[in-house]
């Protein structure tokens, strides 16, 4: 109960919802109430931890080698006088992974601005191109190097998956970047990119939540951010307390999810074996 304000607001919201519920819940889809409660509970947990972090509470973050290596990779490119290649995946901005990839790009752009290393960002969607450009422009401005930024460092290749892979491979072979970073949503082109990067001797770091591509990246890259590590990258790289608080909140939710899985399994076992209780799976299934 460290944050009284939070608990007062949350209690108020719960009371308001209960009144709404007992008043006949107009326009509310009651089949989805379990999902609604879950979303509110998860949001509250995240918010609570974010507020705690903002108030100065320190949280331990497990070191992620892949994120530490990003700065090393940029440094290596600087030493070798070669560019850094950043691939933000092949999907559009409506995919959270692409958004996460563009966020990490902002941090990478700050590093390349600081180290005065050239950055090459080929993209496969026009909206991603615009978003990535804005992020890079801001990063270079914040590092006090707007002169180093030019629009063409983020450039469009094609929307087509394999034509894009061919285009990026061509850039790799011609420019021989010292570091290749793949952060976003990937499909079958992942191994084509990562193997070509490997063949030119670049240090490679990947981050994706695309499950099917994780084994390919693990095999061909030096470091891989798997799933949620990738989404937490922004918090790690910025070290902003509110983002770090969010990561801790995420872990809290994960503990709750694990508990629910165990409990639901037990309840179902009891229900199916002895017919005692209720079907937990039916309750948790959202229509």
């Amino acid at each position: 109960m460290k944050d009284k304000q939070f608990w007062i607001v949350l209690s108020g919201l719960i009371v308001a919802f209960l009144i709404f519920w007992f008043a006949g819940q107009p326009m509310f889809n009651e089949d989805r109430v379990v999902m609604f409660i879950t979303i509110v509970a998860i949001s509250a947990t995240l918010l609570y931890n974010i507020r705690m972090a903002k108030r100065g509470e320190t949280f331990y973050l497990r070191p992620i080698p892949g994120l530490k290596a990003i700065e090393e990779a940029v440094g290596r490119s600087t030493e070798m006088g070669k560019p850094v290649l950043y691939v933000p995946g092949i999907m559009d901005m409506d995919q959270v992974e692409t958004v996460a990839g563009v966020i990490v790009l902002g941090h990478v752009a700050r590093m390349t601005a600081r180290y005065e290393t050239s950055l090459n960002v080929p993209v496969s969607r026009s909206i991603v191109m615009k978003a990535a450009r804005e992020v890079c422009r801001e990063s270079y401005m914040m590092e006090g190097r707007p002169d180093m930024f030019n629009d063409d460092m983020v450039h469009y290749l094609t929307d087509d998956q394999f034509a894009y892979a061919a285009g990026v491979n061509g850039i790799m072979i011609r420019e021989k970047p010292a570091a290749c970073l793949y952060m976003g949503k990937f499909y079958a082109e992942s191994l084509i990119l990562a193997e070509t990067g490997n063949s030119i001797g670049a240090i490679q770091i990947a981050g994706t939540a695309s499950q099917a591509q994780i084994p390919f990246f693990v095999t061909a890259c030096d470091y891989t951010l798997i799933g949620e590590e990738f989404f937490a990258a922004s918090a790690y790289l910025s070290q902003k307390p509110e983002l770090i608080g969010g990561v801790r909140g995420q872990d809290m939710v994960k503990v709750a999810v694990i508990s629910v899985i165990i409990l639901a399994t037990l309840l179902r076992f009891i229900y199916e074996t002895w017919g005692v209780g209720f079907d937990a799976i039916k309750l948790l299934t959202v229509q």
Partner: protein
Amino acid sequence: MIWKRQIPILIVAFIGALTLFGWFVEEPNIKAFVDDDATQWYDILASFAIILGAMNLMKMQIQKVARQKKGWPYSIVAIFGFLFAITAGFFIKGVDDSVAVWGAHVTTEGTLFKWIFDYMFTPLSATMFSLLAFFVASASYRAFRIRNFEASLLLVAGIIIMVGRVPIGSLISSWVIMYIIVLALGIGVNTWKKDKKITFGVVGVGIIIVTVAGMMTGWPLDKPAIFYLPIIQEWIYYYPNVAGTRAIMIGVGLGIFATSIRYILGIEKSYIGE
């Protein structure tokens, strides 16, 4: 500054909250927005945005040719391909209106666009995808090393899946696998005890047991099933793989949710460069 900071954050917060909580609301207009309109609006915007991308592509390629940068002849091919596809899509059908009207010409046999698809796009796409086979070979050759216990587990599982998934796997008898296991056990015992006598003893006893059991049962190809490769690979696919996949799915789902909440609440502002 308000246009580049507050307004975008407000739009993200409003549309995000509407999309998230609109899912629970039984109101036709909100439902229509959440289910159809929001995504379609995005697609319409993205369709127009392709012009930006195309212009950027052309600018980069023309610059490359003009400045004769490394690999500039390829840029000529890119420019030509771009113009050719536009011509086939919008200006020259290649057939009469009686054969195909504009729009349907894209998939109609005999049109220029279909020709591009069949004889240029299809083989080029297939070539790029087929590169995967070669890259899988070189990547697995390099990466699958018995460095430690986890790597060995990965290697064994990988080989079982690779061989068990294809018909040749079903031709390998369970008994062959059992002999291989006995030999592997021998290696393990040798590494542990470092005594040749014990190793030979274990391997010898193992071989005798397997041989006697085989002779007694008549060496059936797929029995005992737990040593039959297609069965083992199905089990790996169905249980350890699904368990791992589900764990990643939950983690990814939470990551996506946390990121979305940070956007909606305006905590994460990196997308506008903050």
